């Protein structure tokens, strides 16, 4: 074996003179080194989010060349709001995929939550905030029931949640009764979720600055702690490049959004949730258990983890996020009907998680992959709408992208294992 140069995490420990890499001429070498380490990671099966970024760039270039309005601030801003509903559901799917299972009930659960909200608020006059809380908790409850059944019976989660898909759909129809479509308050709290924009330009820039600052501070503080105990650490140069990358992305987004109506509340909530859940999964005890289950349930059990509790919690999280997503979807059309949460919603949510780079085999992926995946899917949908392409073509193309994502996932998994045998 040989060390896998994982430059994203640790630069070689050798002389840690700060600024050493910043000298003139070093930049070229840094780029060459980065490229080499990237090729290495690619071969080692750690392509990360690069493939999906390439696909996204390709989709954007193609549609922009077909229709000049595609990359307009207006369309991009709408895209930013459209991704939130399905995106939140996809984040829940990421949780379940991480433990190597699949949740097929997320569509039904999102519809159920929307129905609970609509009936409580519109028919029974329950205040919006309370109805919203109850609706989200209904999703949590649905997820917990499924999680508990899955953990206790050890029936694969996709079967348990397939039963859930039917059950929650039935419950939703019962909740809605014969009413058919329920219209929500156009000026209410839930409507605001997707129609409120921070029109002050400063807000978007402030959020961008905060995000950049947080990225810089966290990597800088970690570097300082590592330096203090004499362990491998990122170079300052590395941190700067990373921070600059985040800054460019964040401020460019803020700039584009401000050219239309400002930062959409929905997008802000979405990104804050995704970032928060990313920390939860990758930096906490709970998240480590989730990843461990995706690696090997038996190994996790032997390491004294309470497997059943984690499994239940994961499906509860998925149900909760599905309910949240359902509220955003209902907010977007300010109505709830018997078809809420049905159709391609479930498939899009699962596809988003997988296209974004979360492994179907469990144990690999982050919440950010849901964001990237849903961006790809929604971009295709939006571009198709702009260019008047029939839905049939849209489905075929999304299917193709999904297939490509699964193939990449499978290949990278195999190459990782082959790497181990070397």
């Amino acid at each position, binding site marked *: *074996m040989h*060390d*896998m140069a*994982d430059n994203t*995490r*640790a630069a070689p420990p050798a002389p840690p003179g700060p600024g050493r890499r910043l000298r003139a001429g070093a930049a070229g070498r840094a780029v060459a080194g980065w490229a080499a380490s990237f090729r290495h990671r690619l071969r*080692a*099966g750690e392509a990360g989010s690069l493939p999906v970024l390439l696909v996204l760039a390709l989709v954007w270039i193609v549609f922009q060349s077909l229709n000049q309005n595609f990359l307009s601030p207006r369309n991009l801003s709408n895209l930013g709001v459209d991704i939130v509903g399905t995106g939140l559901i996809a984040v829940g799917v990421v949780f379940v995929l991480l433990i190597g299972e699949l949740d097929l009930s997320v569509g039904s659960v999102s519809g159920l939550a929307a129905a609970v909200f609509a009936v409580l608020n519109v028919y029974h006059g329950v205040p919006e905030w309370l109805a919203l809380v109850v609706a989200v908790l209904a999703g949590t409850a649905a997820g917990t029931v499924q999680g508990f059944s899955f953990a206790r019976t050890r029936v694969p989660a996709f079967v348990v949640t397939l039963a859930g898909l039917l059950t929650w759909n039935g419950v939703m129809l019962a909740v809605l009764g014969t009413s058919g479509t329920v219209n929500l308050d156009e000026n209410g709290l839930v409507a605001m979720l997707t129609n409120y924009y921070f029109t002050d330009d400063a807000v978007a820039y402030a959020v961008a600055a905060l995000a950049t600052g947080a990225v810089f501070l966290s990597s800088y503080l*970690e570097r300082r*702690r*590592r330096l203090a*105990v004499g*362990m491998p650490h990122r170079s300052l140069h590395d941190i700067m490049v990373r921070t600059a990358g985040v800054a460019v992305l964040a401020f460019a987004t803020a700039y584009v959004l401000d050219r239309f109506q400002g930062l959409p509340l929905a997008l802000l909530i979405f990104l804050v949730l995704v970032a928060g859940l990313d*920390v939860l999964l990758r*930096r*906490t*005890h709970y998240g*480590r258990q989730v*990843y*461990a289950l*995706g*690696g*090997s349930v*038996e*190994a*996790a*059990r*032997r*390491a*004294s*983890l309470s497997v059943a509790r984690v499994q239940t919690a994961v499906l509860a999280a998925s149900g909760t996020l599905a309910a949240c997503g359902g509220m955003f979807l209902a907010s977007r059309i300010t109505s709830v009907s018997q078809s809420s949460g049905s159709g391609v919603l479930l498939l899009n949510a699962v596809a988003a998680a997988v296209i974004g780079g979360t492994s179907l085999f*469990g*144990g*690999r992926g982050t919440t950010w992959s849901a964001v990237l995946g849903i961006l790809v899917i929604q971009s295709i949908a939006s571009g198709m709408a702009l260019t008047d392409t029939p839905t049939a073509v849209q489905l075929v193309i999304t299917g193709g992208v999904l297939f490509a994502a699964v193939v990449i996932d499978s290949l990278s998994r195999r190459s*990782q*294992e082959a*790497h*181990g*045998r*070397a």
Partner: protein
Amino acid sequence: MPTPLLALHGVWKRFGVVEVLKDIELEIHAGQVLALLGDNGAGKSTLVKVISGVAPADRGALEWEGRPVQIRRPHDARDLGIATVFQDLALCGNLDVVGNLFLGREIRRFGLLDEVEMERRSRQLLERLTRGIRDLRGPVVSLSSGQRQTVAIARSLLGDPRVLLLDEPTAALGFEQTTEVLDLVDRLRDQGVGVLLISHNLGDVKALADRAAVLRLGRNNGFFDVNTASQEAIISSITGATENGPRRTAHHEAR
């Protein structure tokens, strides 16, 4: 002889209709290496799983320093101070070395995982064991099988165990690493750890173990003092040429 650290009395284990362990007696003493020997299917690995709480005993009594204890799940064994290197290693391939070492007992700082401290301790621990692993942050599935075995051994040492169960710990190791592991077992014994060692290599057993317990077809088939017993006697006990276990009546279903 002083009270054993861990003693098993009349332990039975059944998988479905198969009685895998029948009326097993075993004592693990502090500062001693007990070799557990037996042919394939004799029940060695199952016994390890019983002691480590992975597959708890159906019947029988366990004593820890003379007082009765229950080991119903892996957590119980860990709380007593029993650590295990399983034959299949039981690592999470997607987690990195640090993640595997600290799985289930992560160090936290402000509620978040303290990766820096965990990595520092992992480095310390691994430097004691071997020079073979440099990258602590790649997924364990990308390591060679020898390196993975080292990780599993390192993990078992993390909680300063008092009893260490080693199920074929050197199976995937090369000559040099095997020597490193055997030296380590020697040091641990000197520190007062009770070691249960499963090995197919009688040379290792002779060199390292103080006593040997032989299992045959799920039953005890003899205890030996490794320093005095002849290799032939041990082998014939393993193969069943001699039947010298503590026997009870033949109709073992009698309750």
